[in-house]
């Protein structure tokens, strides 16, 4: 009987390990109700009381071994099938993607937001004001009386004699100072209008970001420090600044600010027109006339202001050579940013 059991085991294991083994069929053949092992066990009654437990144990061991072999083989088979499936499921990963394409923010908005975020990080808030503005806020409060020659540099669109399209976002600074006492740290981004015909570098409408700081003890060194931080953040840590004396009626002293060319580092290239420097900012210490006009005592407070053209920076930043592209809104252009 023992031999019989050993043979069953050997047969069963051989069958399991043979190629194309039908495991379920093997299980039924050996372990099923009418299976070989079962029928052997049925014959156990003929055995002696001494032999019965011994053979029983062997029989159980054989069953266990067959079951275990079946299980291992089944796992292996499953694994094989999975491998086969994975191979059959290989796809062409170079086929075009299906995901919805997100749209793009307009390049001007991207640059404007970058500028805003730099100043927000330095404690600035964002002030907004009307684009259709009183002459008073656009000019007079900024130390540019009627018939002042400085008005020539900003050819202005007028609605009536004293309402115009703002030619700068500075009126927002005046409005801010009228309503808020120092400390003041605001930037005023927005659209401004000048009577320039459209060409590659001019547009009757463009965007500015101006900034204003008013507090006790603000120095011209502070102005330089802040603009340096700004330029380094925007154009990279190696950026150098050059301050040139200039004249704006609402600041004194006034400066135009150049940054070292972020493309060539100052050696001279197409972007900086071989000058190594790119003019990007106007700035200066707020004129005491402007402060006192807004009810701020210039003896107690000082401040600085600065302004930049977003189009100009965006064009330099992205290497755009024609301003008209920014307002054509050709999607082939917009989707590049």
């Amino acid at each position, binding site marked *: 009987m023992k031999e019989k059991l050993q043979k069953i085991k050997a047969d069963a294991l051989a069958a399991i390990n043979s190629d194309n083994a039908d495991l379920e069929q093997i299980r039924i053949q050996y372990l099923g109700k009418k299976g070989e092992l079962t029928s052997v066990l049925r014959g156990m009654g003929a055995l002696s009381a001494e032999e019965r437990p011994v053979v029983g144990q062997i029989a159980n061991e054989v069953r266990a071994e067959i079951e275990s072999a079946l299980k291992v083989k089944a796992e292996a088979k499953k694994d094989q099938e999975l491998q086969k499936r994975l191979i059959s499921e290989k796809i062409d990963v170079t086929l075009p993607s299906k995901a919805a394409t997100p749209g793009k923010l307009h390049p001007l908005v991207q640059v404007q937001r970058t500028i805003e975020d730099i100043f927000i990080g330095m404690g600035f*808030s964002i002030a907004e004001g009307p684009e*259709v503005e009183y002459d008073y806020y656009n000019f007079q409060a900024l130390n540019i009386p009627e018939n002042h020659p400085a008005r020539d540099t900003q050819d202005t669109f007028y*609605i009536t004699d004293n309402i115009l399209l703002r030619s700068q976002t500075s009126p927002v600074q005046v409005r801010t100072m009228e309503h808020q006492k120092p400390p003041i740290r605001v930037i005023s981004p927005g659209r401004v209008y000048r009577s320039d015909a459209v060409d590659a570098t001019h547009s009757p409408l463009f965007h500015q970001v101006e900034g204003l700081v008013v507090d006790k003890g603000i*120095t011209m060194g502070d102005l330089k420090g802040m603009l340096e931080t700004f330029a380094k953040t925007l154009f990279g840590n190696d950026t150098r600044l050059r301050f*040139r004396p200039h004249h704006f009626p609402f600041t004194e002293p006034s400066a135009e600010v150049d940054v070292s060319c972020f493309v060539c580092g100052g050696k001279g290239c197409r972007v900086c027109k071989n000058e190594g420097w790119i003019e990007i900012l106007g700035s200066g210490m707020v004129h005491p006339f402007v402060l006192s006009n807004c009810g701020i005592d210039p003896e107690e407070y000082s401040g600085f202001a600065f302004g930049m053209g977003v189009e100009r920076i965006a064009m330099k930043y992205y290497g755009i050579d024609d301003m008209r592209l920014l307002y054509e809104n050709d999607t082939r252009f917009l989707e590049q940013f």
Partner: protein
Amino acid sequence: MNLSRNWLSDFVDVSDISAKDYCDRMTDTGSKVECFEELGADIENVVVAKILKITPHENSDHLQICQVDIGDKVVQIVTGAQNIFEGAIVPAAIPVAKLPGDITIKAGKLRGVESNGMLCSMGELNLTEHDMPGKEPNGILILDNDFADKLGMDIRDALMLKDTVVEFEITSNRPDCLSVIGLARESAVSFERKLNVPTPTVKCVDDGDKIENHLSVAIDAPDLCQKYMARVVKNVKIQPSPLWLRMRLRASGVRPINNIVDITNYVMLEYGQPMHAFDYSCLDGSSIIVRRAGDGESFMSLDDQEHTLDSSMLVIADSKKAVALAGVMGGANSEIKDSTTTVVFESACFLGTSVRVTAKKNGMRTESSARFEKGLDPENCYAGLERACELVELLGAGDVVNGIIDVYPDKKPLTELDFKPEVINAFLGTDVSAEDMANILTSLEFKVEGNKIIAPSFRADIGCMNDVAEEIARIYGYNKIKSSRIKAETTQGGRTPKQKFEVDVENAMCGMGLNQIETFSFISPKYYDKIRLAADSTLRKSVVISNPLGEDTSVMRTTTLPSMLEVLARNYNYNNANVKLFEIGKVYIPTTPDKLPNENKVLSIGMYGDCDFYTVKGVCENILKMAAINEFSVVANPDNASYHPGRCANISVGDKVVGILGEVHPLTLRNYDIDTPVYAAELDFDAIFELMNPNKLYTPLPKYPATTRDFSFVCEEALEVGTIFAEAKKAGGKLVEDVSLFDIYRGPQVGENKKSVSIRVTLRASDRTLTVEEAEKAGAKILKALEAQLGITLRM
């Protein structure tokens, strides 16, 4: 301002400094240089030559063969010019020579005869007949005989063509720098050199005559004329100015005319004092009256333009008529002519704003008015007048009559300020010693006396401590000021909730696949027709620009739809497929004429290609949901002519219409040459922000399962699904969690003007699992209501 460095060297010696270094330093100290030009650099190897012999050319009727003495040798040059003669002194280009316009002259043969150069005309040397008066402009330039001892000399030296011209951009606060002397002063300070401005001296003719015998001056409008000075020159001989003077004018960009006119221009350029010269014989009554023009008074300026004046304008008049528009231009009636024998020189100071307004009203801006309008120094009149008379004597142009007329009704004291070096240092963030500050100021001709500073009369721009600080800073060097960080109270920065919402919306729009655009705020009033806006629409009332660039940018838009359609049309024209765009732009709604308009922000959406009405509707709904506005209605709007009458809707929150969306009307699209359906929306961004629900409170997640009931039924085509949803919700009560659509079918089995609608109702109670009976009951109730209220027929 174009500065001749030759001229500059009369007053300060900076000749050892290269043009580039000169320009850089001047820019650094506040006189911004635009560029510089080396005059004469485009001429090489052109010399003074003498034609010794002329012989005809065998093979040509018009060519002649010249033997030309060029100083060290005689060369043969063939020329086609006819105005030459033996003994003529001419410019000759000797190979290899360069001429303006990148022309190279090489030796060669002309019809078989060797020619070793070219005789030059004035044009070939870039000269005009104004530069070379009395010379033939078309033939070879025949030089005067006094050049005979200069044979072989570089023509640039002989004709004084070499110079460096520096172009300055002078800001409006520094009219004193619109002069050679002003820039010499700045140069001297910038390079720490000595400034040497000689005082003009006038001898006058000693014949016992005096100016009072000839002229009287009265100022009738002292508010517009601070000072008026005049001198008389008699026995004037009008002739061309000498070469050196003409060449300095030429380098400065001023056309030489004749000696007297050139002197006035020369003094204006040198001293910054605009001058005028009248022909004395044309002054009626031997008098000059500075007065306001009469309203309607007519005046012909010396450029022969007729002007009608008014009483805001200042004129220089004689006893009968206006002879000059003060500070702007002289009159044709008294201009210097070849026959002029007696001249009145005017050197005056007129009020800047008056000159500016006068020049503007008459549409003429002159070198003179451009200076006056910035506010000139009355104290400069004297020096300018004296310099003019000195030049008259130097040029032998006439006899200066003894005496000066000087009417000075309004002499202003010099500006005096406190000198507080510590305040200036604290303001600039510098540590400049009081002594260095005083030195800087003194070199700029300020007087520093103890703790007082007195600004020079030519610096009307100095009025407060900041102005003095700027003088210190610019000479000390802006770039030497140490950068620092603000030391102050912290401030709370950041975006306002509305600004944040705008950023969020922009990002969300991009996330939904729309590209952002930027369009002009001004449009053509015709665009209202293009979008088929009703003739009586209030939106046709725009803020109108009084001086627009053109009709198509002449009014501020009251709607963003035209801007969006323009951009879509452009993209359509470029064959760009599947275009989806948005803009957050302003519209400008007029209020009253003397008040500012309301500027409202609009979220404008437009798309064509792979999209339909429900795409744009989805975008709009998502924006409302971003604002946590979950209750809104979309109601068909058949009345907006811009949109398809059957495919347009208003979006409302409560009673407030916050937007319109729809398919753009085919007739509108025809106006934009777009031949594909376009979907658009205009959402009131401000209103949506106002309605934004700021408190987003958590709703507990459901604890009990939901159950669904599906219904398919047939109804009238005209019945809106929104109505079915609303009725189902109403009938089902609070057990209804959601109603959704899963199919709409139209076909012959449904019947004409009918549709089959399949909806799914989700039912849930928050406190228990619904029993089958409860769900059945609710479903039956909904069905009954739909049948009773909306006339649906259940499909089996």
